[in-house]
């Protein structure tokens, strides 16, 4: 049989088997498993069939709990069923998993194992999730490489059918799920041979059917539950041998041999490490290297962790072992040890007691933790562990890979130790997400994997920012098998695809002596040396690097590729590395281009070909001078003016050196300071807006739409201009509340993302040349320094007094200081203007519960945080609990505020003697409906604090601890549509129904944005999204209508790009409404498939087509005998199709399935018409009791 070699990532490798061997697949997105569901959905949409020749049914559920429920139901009715998940998703499945196992039901869940949120969320890989599920009764089979993940997906499927024990098949998130590796694919014949239809039919026969009815899922009582629970034991007893049987059959078919517990190393090893997962690859390779150096060490890799077979475990150990070091990739605080450690202790103890161990005396067993949240686990660390095992008293419950200077758990190791063979080429590439570096490198590794005899591996490290995101690609290839589940630290080839990275990242620390350094440079050979920072020059000279430059931007421009330099740098890499002869390399790159882009049209293919053809002509080798000459130096990550924590901790993380931070540097409970994005000057755009003050009409629209709060306006006393920098611009203010004032619009030049929304929205045009507006884009570098000085001066100008004006119009509202700034959201993000607006209006008294998603990532991902403070130190207090529970989390905040307010008021009443009757009364009856009232209450609270200070009265002390709650607080529950419409809907409904005063802001992008655009119930009909690859076939859920049906919930549907005033009104009314409020905010997103610079007109089209009608439903109006529903937009004036087809999410369906697209558009139009009719009828109902027509 011909071998099928493919180079792909772990998720695809697993999904291939899962799709082939199941009938029903229930999916829900969660990183890093989402891609498996995406593949399954796309393959079924394309008609790919399973082993039995039918297309698996793929259904997206509202949550992982729902997916598990659907899986349970499908299994119970006899379908071969699977799902994919990770982390919190797996936790949500646990209740069903107990049931599925208790009912002895064959199934495999494929888990890309990931950290569980504790002090913080993390999307990266470890075993926290699967270990939390170890008591469910599921078998647990762990794979440690892409090949193993592919193989074990099948072995698990085959074994579960016979064993009737359900399987978790797990592999580390990112390290395996996202590593691109060259593997041997399992042909259909092998899959067919391993899956026994006898067991498939038995599974089906056990399914519930009215044709042979049984009852399953009974309730049992103390008399029999226990006995019934023990019935399953024989199945668990048999399971390990069944797995080994299939492993053996698999080996006979493929030649790849696996054991339940696999020992590698010296036959007489004294020191053996026990480990599960990809870390085992690293330990095995290190042990091999150490064996070659005469060390008698070994490793026992655990494949089948549950059921834990003591017999097989001890049989696999060498009799010579004296010390076992058991490594867990999870943490169980308070336990006597982590899970694998405890199992090993138990196993050895029992085996020795039973006399089945190969040794007479139990070896010493120590446990340690490594690799949490994808922390690096390197051969150097492995050697550190072996070295410690050789000590008379090896450290137990150790950690490796961090510096624990608090509990002193960490082992020392020599980071310089390496086992990487010289035959393996190691290349590291630094790029921007937007320049296509990662995509090109994935292609490169596929070319090397599939066009040469080399083994190949690609691993990619991403940024936590969504705009200006940096990427690092780690590529290995060579004639020997690659078993390196860790990043490259010493590379033969380092490429820098963005010149400005040189001043930010010490990338040449990755270069080994004599390595190649390839730089994308606009400077030619005669200029380049003088443009390099001194540190870079020094590294090039000292390491003797071969230095190449290539003006990839110029080549890209000539080829019509814009700023996508991926294929150009890729071609240079192939040329310099010599992995293939030049002609073959170029042919392979072109074949890859054709494969990747071919279906997008010949034009795209030809442009890429042109870029490839022109690349080498522009490649230059630089003669490296003998001495450093540069005056330029690398930039500090943050300013010296930043607070200590920001300089020492945040700055280290920004510099990419967070791994070096010791435990003591980290906050103990996940609490971090706010207002830290201001210190991270990212300089990610080449163009920024420049204010033409002579044209400005001071409307505030630019400030309103800015997603990153980088353009601001102020009115101020002109006398302050005495200290203004010479280039600081200003005009006379046109605010009736501030006569005689000066006015300035100022841009933060180093924080701007260059999205251009401010320029788009600017209505002020030069009458002689309308292309000149009051804001125009200009090159940033020439004005960066001067505008930075102007920005600092601007910040020093006092904010306008909030009590002096009403923010009832856009112009005034934008005088309010934003307390949400410089987030890492995408350039042109459609969500953040709404959060910023809320922060302006209520930020100094706002508590935010934020659902997991985009808004929690740009709101709370390290290293810096965008929520900010005013001059008094007040600002939004923010927290993220989970994805599914955000409404409840926010309600809890409301309950605290309400309860504490009630108690504080009781105390004020009781302490009237101390406070004075006037103050007490005023505190209790204060009108806080506007800024003046709120400020007055703050003054009263200050007075209260002064009066109670020093009092020994316990009640006074109690009141002092609560006094701030007497000032009105605004509770905001913020999240995306995935949360509000799907996973959190039950809780949201309950919280809204509670009648409590919470404000819910749904940033409605109509997809799960953060995980890459999966369909939610907010996705409109006809739109293509992941998990709806054939176009969403049903209309979006009308969440606003559901909320309105309660009659006592304030509901608004807004789109700031269509009506900023209506948006402003809705936010103010929601806050003012003394009850639950819900704002559905239309939020353009990159997942919609158009340039976000055009988002304002797209928002307008959404409204004008009726896809997103604007309205406000204010229950307060009912008491005034008015209809509570105000329709703020007019009847649709443009067809749905016309609006929709300006966005790729819709138009791509017309290109892939025109008939379906047309049919969906027609139905969508009918739905929009019907909904509008309904809204109109509701809005025209009379609420006047005297109106006869209402009788």
């Amino acid at each position, binding site marked *: 049989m011909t071998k099928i070699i493919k180079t792909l990532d772990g998720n695809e490798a697993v999904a291939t088997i899962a799709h082939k061997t199941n009938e029903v697949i229930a999916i829900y997105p969660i990183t890093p498993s989402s891609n498996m569901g995406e593949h399954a959905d796309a393959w079924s949409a394309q008609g790919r069939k399973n082993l039995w020749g039918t297309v698996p049914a793929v259904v997206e559920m509202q949550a992982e709990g729902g997916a598990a429920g659907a899986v349970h139901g499908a299994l119970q009715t006899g379908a071969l069923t699977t799902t994919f998940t990770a982390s919190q998703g797996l936790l949500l499945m646990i209740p069903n998993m107990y049931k599925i196992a208790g009912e002895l039901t064959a199934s495999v869940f494929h888990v890309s194992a990931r950290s569980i949120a504790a002090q913080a969320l993390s999307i990266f890989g470890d075993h926290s999730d699967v270990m939390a599920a170890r008591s469910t009764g599921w078998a647990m089979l762990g794979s440690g490489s892409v090949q193993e993940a592919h193989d074990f997906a099948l072995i698990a499927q085959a074994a579960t059918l016979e064993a009737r024990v359900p399987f978790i098949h797990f592999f580390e998130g990112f390290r395996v799920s996202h590593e691109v590796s060259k593997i041997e694919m399992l042909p259909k014949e092998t899959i067919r041979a391993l899956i026994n239809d006898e067991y498939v039919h038995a599974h089906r026969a056990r399914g519930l059917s009215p044709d042979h009815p049984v009852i399953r899922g009974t309730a049992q009582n103390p008399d029999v539950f226990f006995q019934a629970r023990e019935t399953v034991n024989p199945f668990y007893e048999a399971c390990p041998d069944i797995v080994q049987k299939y492993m053996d059959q698999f080996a006979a078919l493929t030649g790849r041999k696996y054991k339940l517990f696999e020992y590698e190393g010296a036959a007489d090893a004294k020191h053996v490490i026990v480990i599960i997962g990809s870390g085992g690859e690293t330990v095995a390779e290190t042990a091999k290297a150490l064996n070659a150096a005469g060390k008698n060490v070994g490793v026992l890799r655990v494949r089948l962790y549950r059921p834990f077979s003591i017999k097989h475990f001890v049989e696999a150990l060498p009799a010579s072992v004296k010390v076992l070091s058991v490594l867990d990739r999870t943490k169980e605080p308070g336990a006597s040890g982590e899970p694998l450690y405890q199992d090993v202790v138990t196993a050895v103890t029992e085996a020795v007691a039973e006399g089945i161990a190969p040794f007479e005396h139990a070896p010493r067993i120590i446990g340690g933790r490594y690799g949490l949240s994808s922390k690096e686990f390197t051969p150097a660390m492995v050697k550190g562990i072996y070295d410690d095992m050789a000590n008379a008293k090896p450290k137990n419950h150790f950690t490796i890979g961090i510096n624990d200077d608090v509990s002193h758990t960490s082992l020392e190791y020599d980071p310089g130790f390496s086992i990487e063979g010289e035959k393996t080429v190691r290349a590291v590439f630094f790029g921007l997400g937007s320049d296509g570096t990662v995509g090109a490198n994935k292609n490169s590794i596929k070319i090397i994997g599939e066009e040469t005899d080399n083994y190949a591996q690609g691993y990619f490290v991403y940024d936590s920012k969504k705009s200006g995101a940096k990427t690092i690609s780690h590529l290995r290839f060579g004639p020997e098998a690659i078993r390196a589940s860790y990043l490259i630290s010493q590379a033969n080839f380092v490429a820098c695809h963005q010149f400005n990275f040189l001043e930010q990242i010490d990338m040449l620390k990755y270069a080994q002596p004599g390595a190649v350094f390839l730089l994308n440079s606009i400077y030619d050979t005669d200029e380049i040396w003088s443009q390099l920072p001194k540190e870079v020059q020094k590294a090039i000279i000292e390491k003797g690097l071969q230095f190449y430059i290539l003006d990839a931007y110029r080549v890209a421009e000539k080829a019509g590729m814009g700023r996508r330099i991926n294929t150009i740098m890729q071609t240079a890499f192939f040329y310099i590395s010599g992995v293939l002869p030049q002609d073959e390399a170029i042919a392979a790159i072109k074949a890859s281009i054709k494969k990747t*882009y071919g279906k997008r049209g010949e034009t795209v293919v030809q442009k890429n070909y042109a870029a490839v053809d022109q690349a080498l002509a522009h490649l230059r080798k630089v003669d490296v001078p003998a001495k450093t000459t540069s005056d330029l130096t690398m930039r500090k990550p943050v300013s010296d003016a930043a607070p200590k924590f920001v300089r020492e901790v945040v700055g280290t993380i920004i510099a990419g050196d967070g791994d070096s931070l010791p435990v003591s540097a980290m906050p103990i409970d996940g609490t971090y300071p706010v207002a830290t994005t201001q210190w991270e000057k990212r300089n990610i755009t080449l163009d920024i807006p420049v204010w033409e003050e002579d044209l400005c009409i001071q409307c505030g629209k630019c400030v309103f739409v800015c997603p990153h709060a980088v353009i601001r306006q102020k009115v101020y006393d002109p006398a302050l201009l005495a200290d203004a920098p010479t280039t600081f611009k200003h005009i006379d203010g046109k605010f009736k509340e501030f006569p005689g004032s000066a006015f300035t619009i100022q841009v933060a030049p180093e924080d701007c993302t260059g999205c251009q929304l401010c320029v788009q929205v600017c209505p002020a045009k030069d009458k002689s040349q309308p292309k000149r507006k009051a804001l125009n884009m200009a090159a940033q570098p020439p004005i960066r320094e001067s505008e930075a000085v102007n920005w600092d001066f601007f910040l020093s100008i006092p904010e306008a007094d909030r009590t002096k004006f009403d923010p009832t119009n856009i112009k005034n509202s934008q005088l309010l200081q934003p307390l949400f700034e410089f987030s890492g959201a995408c350039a042109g993000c459609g969500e953040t203007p709404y959060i910023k607006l809320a922060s302006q209006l209520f930020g100094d008294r706002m508590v935010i519960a934020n659902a997991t998603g985009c808004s929690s990532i740009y709101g709370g991902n390290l290293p810096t945080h965008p929520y900010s403070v005013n001059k008094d130190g007040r600002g939004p207090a923010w927290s993220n609990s989970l994805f599914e529970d955000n409404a409840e989390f926010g309600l809890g905040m409301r309950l605290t505020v309400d309860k504490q307010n009630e108690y504080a008021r009781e105390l004020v009443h009781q302490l009237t003697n101390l406070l004075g009757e006037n103050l007490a009364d005023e505190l209790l009856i204060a009108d806080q409906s506007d800024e003046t009232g709120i400020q007055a209450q703050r003054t009263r609270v200050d007075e209260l604090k002064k009066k109670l200070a020093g009092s020994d009265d316990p009640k006074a002390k109690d009141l002092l601890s609560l006094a701030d709650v007497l000032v009105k607080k605004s509770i905001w529950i913020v999240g995306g549509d995935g949360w509000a419409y799907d996973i959190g809907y039950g809780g949201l409904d309950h919280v809204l129904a509670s009648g409590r005063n919470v404000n819910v802001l749904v940033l409605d992008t109509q997809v799960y944005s953060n995980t890459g655009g999966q369909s939610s119930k907010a996705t409109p009909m006809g739109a293509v999204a992941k998990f709806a690859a054939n176009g969403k076939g049903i209309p979006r859920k009308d969440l606003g209508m559901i909320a309105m049906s309660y009659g006592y919930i304030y509901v608004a549907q807004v789109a700031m790009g269509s009506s900023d005033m209506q948006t402003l009104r809705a936010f103010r009314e929601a806050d003012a409404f003394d009850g639950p409020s819900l704002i559905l905010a239309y939020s353009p997103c990159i997942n919609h498939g158009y340039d976000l610079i055009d988002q304002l007109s797209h928002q307008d089209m959404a409204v004008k087509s009726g896809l997103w009608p604007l309205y406000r439903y204010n229950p307060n109006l009912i008491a005034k005998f008015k209809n509570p529903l105000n329709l703020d937009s007019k009847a649709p004036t443009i067809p749905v199709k016309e609006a929709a087809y300006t966005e790729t999410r819709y138009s*791509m369906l017309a290109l892939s399935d025109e008939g379906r697209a047309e049919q969906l558009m027609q139905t969508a139009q009918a739905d929009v018409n019907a909904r509008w009719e309904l809204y109109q009828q509701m809005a025209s109902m009379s609420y006047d009791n005297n109106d006869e027509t209402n009788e």
Partner: protein
Amino acid sequence: MVDLKTNYLGLALKNPLVASASPLSETVQGVQQLEEAGVSAVVVYSLFEEQIIKESLELDHFLSRDTHSFAEAMTHLPEVGKFSLAPENYVQHISNLKAAVSIPVIGSLNGVSTGGWIEYAQKIEAAGADALELNLYYLPTDPALGGNEIEAAYLQVVKDIRKTIRIPLAVKLSPFITALPNFAKKLADAGANGLVLFNRFYQPDFDLEALEVVPDLHLSTSSELLLPLRWIAILKGRVALDFALTSGVHTVEDIVKSMMAGANVAMSASTLLKNGTDYARELIAKLEEWLIDHEYESIQQMQGSLSQEMSGNEAAFERANYMKVLNSY
């Protein structure tokens, strides 16, 4: 019984009314209705050079943009098995039309530069088109670019396309050619078989409130007939090309005038869009009546009868006519 038959680009047509490129030909059903209404041939809506290039680039841009940037979202839209891009759809549409109607189907390409897009001429031919109409329209805004260069570029496109196809090739032009007879001859030499006069196009209008330039397109009126009428009358007999008159063909008189000027066919879109496809039936019936009323036996009898060469009043088409019109005021 009068004979309405005519010949255009070597195609024997039952009458001289041809549906020119318009949205009416976007569906098979639309073309079937045109056939039922009696038009003798249909020019299918145009496939634009820009469309061929832009659609591909846009799709690539939006599917590639910001991918592989962020750990949680490697891509933003799902992978789709296959796209049917506009060019492929167009070619398929031609094929579908040929299977559905028996009148000649003329494909239409709109572009000005040589390049990859012209391969679609061949694909249109392969799909069964009876002829190809090449719509050449370039708006020169560069002061450094002279008329000769533009005409040379036009001719190059015609030559390149001629090399790739065997079916008849008509060229549709804008009226802004300095020496049309000379250029028409060059087109004939380059391999064109017919000339379609004239192109109509989007003309920008101004939005005075927003101070913005906005595109606009009005349907034609009969008054627009006069320009192509004159030029066909001048060219008829001078260059070895067939002629289609398009722009302003709304009434039976307009068709008759077209024929008398020397056109082989009169093309209409605006009036069919405005009055419905069935209006073609009415026009053809009226044409027959007109011929009977005016005692013509056939269309061929009148074709070119009022061309400059045959009218006996050559001055009427030249400057002298200008003087005459002025004097009539």
